[in-house]
């Protein structure tokens, strides 16, 4: 049975600007918002939009991601025909290759796509926090009679030169593409989400693969080639919440924005557009008599006897008596021991912050670094981690790191 549209999710990125957080973890598997991982957003968007076939292209540190996706059941993607499939690079009769670029990753899986004989293919990126109805995007694509459409966001003009920009006419028809230009002619930034007619995509993938000088990248090669040939290309305006969480500060910021859905635009409390995730299975969280929680998100399994202010606590975090957590993102299973102070920082999974240790600092004197402690790290008693630190090794008791 043919599918109208299937999704291909690019999840192979290393996420090197997340440093300690992605040393052993693919970027799409980075935890977000108390009980999610980044990939929950595009996956939930697919399901909520009616897409039931998703190929996930993985390459870098895929173990956690593979286990997390499993058979796709938490997203209702365990289907008889279709469902979710993790697609790592594989060996073929003619040899094997890593995915050389985003376009090459799709190229290597042409046979996967052909199994479903789709009319359209949507290319998604696994490193964005965004709630988007892809069915509305497809409606636009069909209405315009497009062969290629790209989702774009209006960005402030003074920031436009940081993005790949689409120059479009009054009918949203794309006339030009500028990759991080010095003199932007448009403020429509590409979100890296594309809908292709499958026959067109396939043709250009094969052509691109045959070009030895190509980087096999959608932005650098495929899109310019489509433009060159005068294909029917349109820009679909998206105005909801969208955040690329590729850096420590943007990841921290996006988490903090979850705490203010009324103003920031990311609302996880939306029954009509649920974000699904694999469940921790822990019991409810507990706040004891000495615990204080203010303006925070707390997940199942947490035990709080200390003070938590404007923070996001993932499943199973413990905050002991006398400890203080503020403006912090504390990921699953971490323990903040008695008297420790954790401020304006990201603590990864299964970290122990020892008694009276200090991690991070509130912004002062133009200094607004987000201290980051990698997964499984032990920060010894009385240690001090400065606001710009990136901790990848255990820290001895009393040690100071900046």
């Amino acid at each position, binding site marked *: 049975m043919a599918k109208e549209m299937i999704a291909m999710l690019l999840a192979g990125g290393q996420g090197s600007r997340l440093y300690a957080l992605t040393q052993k973890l693919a970027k799409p598997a980075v935890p977000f*918002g*108390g*009980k999610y991982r980044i990939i929950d957003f595009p996956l939930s968007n697919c399901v909520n939009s009616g897409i039931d076939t998703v190929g996930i292209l993985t390459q870098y540190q895929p173990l956690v991601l593979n286990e997390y996706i499993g058979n796709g*059941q*938490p997203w209702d993607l365990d289907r008889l025909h279709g469902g979710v499939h993790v697609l790592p690079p594989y060996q073929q009769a003619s040899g094997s290759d890593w995915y050389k670029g985003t376009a090459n990753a799709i190229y290597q899986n042409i046979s996967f796509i052909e199994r479903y004989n789709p009319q359209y293919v949507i290319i998604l990126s696994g490193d964005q926090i965004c709630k988007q109805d892809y069915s509305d995007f497809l409606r636009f694509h069909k209405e315009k009679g497009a062969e290629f459409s790209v989702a774009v966001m209006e960005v402030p003009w003074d920031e436009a030169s940081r993005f790949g920009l689409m120059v479009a006419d009054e009918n949203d028809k794309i006339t030009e593409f500028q990759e991080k230009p010095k003199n932007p002619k448009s403020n429509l930034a590409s979100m890296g989400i594309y809908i292709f007619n499958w026959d067109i995509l396939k043709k250009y993938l094969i052509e691109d693969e045959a070009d030895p000088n190509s980087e096999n990248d959608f932005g650098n090669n495929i899109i310019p080639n489509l433009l060159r040939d005068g294909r029917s290309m349109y820009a679909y305006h998206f105005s909801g919440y969208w955040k690329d969480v590729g850096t420590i500060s943007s990841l921290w910021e996006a988490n903090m924005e979850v*705490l203010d859905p009324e103003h920031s635009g990311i609302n*996880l*409390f939306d029954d009509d557009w*649920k*974000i*699904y*995730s694999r*469940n921790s*299975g*822990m*019991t*409810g*969280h*507990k*706040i*004891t*008599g000495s*615990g*204080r*929680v*203010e*303006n*925070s*998100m*707390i*997940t*199942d399994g947490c*035990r709080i006897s200390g003070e938590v202010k404007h923070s*996001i*606590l993932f499943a199973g975090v413990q905050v002991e008596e006398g400890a203080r957590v503020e403006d912090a993102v504390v990921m699953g299973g971490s323990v903040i021991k008695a008297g420790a102070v954790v401020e304006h920082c990201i603590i990864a999974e299964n970290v122990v912050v020892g008694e009276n240790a200090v991690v991070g600092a509130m912004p002062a004197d133009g200094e607004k670094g987000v201290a980051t402690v990698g997964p499984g790290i032990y920060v010894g008693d009385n240690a001090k981690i400065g606001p710009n630190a990136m901790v990848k090794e255990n820290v001895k008791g009393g040690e100071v790191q900046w």
Partner: protein
Amino acid sequence: MVNSNANAMGILFPNSYDNMVPDLVTERLMASIPFAGRYRMVDFVLSSMVNCGIDNISILVRQNYHSLMDHLGSGREWDLTRKNGGLTIFPPYAEKAVKIYHGRIEALASILNFLKAQREKYVILSDTNIAVNFDFEDLLQKHIESGADVTAAYKKEKLPDAMLRAEGAAKGFYYTVDTDESGRVTNILINPKETDEQNLLMNIYVLDREFLIRTIEKAFMEGFVYFERDILARNLDRIHVQAYEFTGYLARISGLRSYFDENMKLLKDENLDGLFEPNPIYTKIRDDNPTRYINGATAKDVLVADGCVIEGDVENCVLFRGVKIGKGAKVKNCVLMQDTIIEEGAELDHVITDKGVVITEGKKMVGTDTYPSFVAKNKRV
């Protein structure tokens, strides 16, 4: 065969002791009563069985079981969606000659053919009125070691008030046992009224499947109804019943007040750990977001599930999934089941709200520690 599974199947009786909590079972049964923030009573025994490698579990429902079927679905959350075994729900089998059953004997008699077709050597029977993290593996091993016909789990505890105060068998039967030095049961007392610590049966039994089939077949023919009263208690000389003492934590629901107290007890870490360790308890997933505490909220001594939004003051409470507490609301000593909404400025003390209750703006409700107020499902106050 690789020995990763227990050689035992489980049978649960989800309607047992419904009579003790009439308020809570108007639209459900004992097994689907919400408990401990995000669970239903059935989750505890069911998960314990699964954690001990029992993957063939039958549930003999009697009445009011829609909520339970909705909760259990295909059994996937308990890893019971299996090709062989898995979860089987047996609704009452309507036949001209068969009335709805009362006791275990009648219930089991209705599934004799099913029992005969199973392969496991042992059967474990259990009610669902006790929330417990039970080690069925140990029970089974002790049963095999003792060579008994039946092994019955008990806990040394005082009889719950509701049982002591019940007239005759109005609230159902409960049993205490006397044992000899070897742990063999010498006497089973039916609905005793002693006020000191007793060996109170948990109604968890393990026995040989073929022995069970033979015994039930015979007892049913002879018109018997209750397994403990009619089979065990009067044949202790012929049937070797061994007692197995359970010393861990359990929460036994024997009335509305006990329901309230058992929820509240979980605010103590040692009790919460006793119930949820060492093995996980599974339940139906709702995909709620984490709980949000908005500016101005205060929370002290609370057990809170995911999906809540708290703007008011909460103290000494158990909040189930999706509870909303409005600005300025003060909620103390309460058990609020899933999706309860407490509007702005409302004040509650010693109240249990069932699922989906709305307490409207500014209303005040006060119960007492011995008599908590109860608001029925989906009611608006």
